[in-house]
């Protein structure tokens, strides 16, 4: 019972702040709302006993990425007024089509007759030790490969960011 209530609360928090992020005119506010979403999702991770991811999520997303966003926004000195005039019709169509996409997916996905329970609060799979073992035993190759990704991102950022 508790779990369900927490789930619902977290979900409402996530969705609500996501919508707020969309609706905010001020980019800074949007960023803040997005951080709230991330926190809610981390809450979900904890609920699912995926503690490692919960922490990483906070650190990487809320901590690093969002701060980066914030920096950029501030750097550009963007505020509400910079958002140009909206095209309501286009927005309406956007919301409608996005909504229908959600609708159609949900309709079909909810049809599964058998209930498939999700392991809540327990289970070792999300614990850091387990994950560390998996990562460095089974996933060495992708782990190493991701260094290439970072290298290229770094080189790219340098190329683009450097003033001529």
């Amino acid at each position, binding site marked *: 019972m508790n779990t369900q209530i927490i789930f619902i609360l977290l979900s409402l928090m996530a969705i609500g702040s996501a919508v707020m992020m969309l609706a905010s005119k001020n980019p800074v506010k949007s960023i803040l709302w997005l951080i709230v979403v991330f926190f809610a999702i981390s809450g979900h991770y904890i609920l699912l006993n995926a503690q490692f991811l919960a922490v990483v999520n906070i650190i990487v997303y809320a901590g690093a990425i969002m701060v980066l966003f914030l920096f950029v926004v501030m750097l550009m000195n963007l505020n509400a007024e910079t958002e140009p005039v909206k095209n309501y019709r286009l927005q309406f169509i956007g919301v409608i089509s996005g909504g229908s996409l959600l609708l159609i*997916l949900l309709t*079909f*996905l909810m*049809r*599964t007759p058998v209930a498939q329970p999700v392991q809540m609060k327990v289970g070792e799979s999300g614990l850091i030790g387990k994950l560390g073992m998996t990562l460095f035993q*089974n*996933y*060495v*190759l*992708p782990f*190493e*490969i*991701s260094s*290439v*990704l970072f*290298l*290229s*991102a770094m*080189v*790219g*950022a*340098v*190329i*683009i960011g*450097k003033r*001529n």
Partner: protein
Amino acid sequence: MNAIIFSAIWGVLMMFTGAFVQSKTLPKYLAITGAALLFLLNGIELYNGTPIFNINGMNMLAITSMNLTFLEVIFAATLLFFMLSGRDVERVGEHVSEYFALIFFVLCGVSLSSTYNTLLLLFLGIEIMSIPLYVLTGADKRNLKSNEASLKYFLMGAFSTGILLMGIAFIYGGNTNASFYIDQIHLGVGKMPVMITVGVVLLIIALSFKVSAAPFHFWTPDVYDGAPTVFTSFMSTIVKAAGFFAFIRLFKTSFGPVQGQWQNLIVFITVATMLIGNVTAVFQQSVKRMLAYSSIAQAGFMLLALFALNQTADDGIILYSAAYSLATIGIFAILIKMNDYTIEGFNGLAKQQPLLGLVATICLLSLTGIPLTAGFTSKFFMLTAAVENGHKFWVVIVAVIFAAISAYYYFRVIQAIYFKEPSSAEPVIDAERVSGSFKILLAITAILILILGIYPEILIGWAHH
């Protein structure tokens, strides 16, 4: 596997070259050496069957002769690309070796996405391909078009990544084997589980985006147009072919047995792609943009492999990659040298530069699919594969009708090259930009196109090795 390691290493090497070496021409030769090395090492692996370092932990890579053959084609094309257009890379900006480094990273991504055996590596491979490309697209920093293309590419690419991941998530969720390995996806009997179905559709959407298939192609013309031409050449050939190869491998390995359940989507996408690519290309004035649309159109033909999904299609996709890459790299190599990118800019090319005119014509004929060129054999294999599939024969008819339409815009350029007088007094190409070695390489390109057009089994033989 040699390819993955050495392309990464060479990328790092190039990166450091940029930091420590001032010479502007050295990176080019280094890059050519690198591409040649990759070609060689990959060839050795293909020939011997064993890599130098075995990094295939947990069997996450699938090293087959077909995959390696495909990579061999990719590296050959890259080598050719470096040799033909290396000097033009130098002209884009000052970070020459960084550009090459990024290209090598892309090649690493290409190697991954053609040999992946898990969805994770597919994802990583695609990202490693994409991120450097976002950068390369924006490499011409002072050019607003290049900036714009880069941002568009990036935003939409990120969007499609989200869709790809959602698809992977649903596949994972629906897979009772709970595995990301593409050969371990449990589809059950009869109809696919709903989650897998949703996953499949999302994957199709995301991968269609990567290979610029309609209606997810919108980024293509703008990005190809805006990016520095030399990188457009690279993107539209090598990277795109890799995307296709990944696409087909995934669907053949994982969802081949239930093709009937998703073939409709492919049919829709194929036809839409051909329609939009071919019809829109007709009206373009800029050759560069026309080639962008043509790449969409050609994607439509390559999608036939996905439609067919049989042995012939496998042979076909390798051939098609080779044929399409050769021809497009060739035509872009010439386009880069042109003073005017519009079709009128090509007027009288044959008169001023007969060899360039001839090679451009052969490339365009190959793109059209005229016999004796590689373009024909590859189209032929695709059509055979599609007919062999046995379903929805009308798709094949539609395909050839569009192939006929494609003649319209390719031949406009040929007409300009051969049958029209130069529109202005200044030469269509500055003679000093066309060196002797460039001409020789172009001739080699043309000869390769013809060889593949007459005897395509050279390639297929490797794949069957």
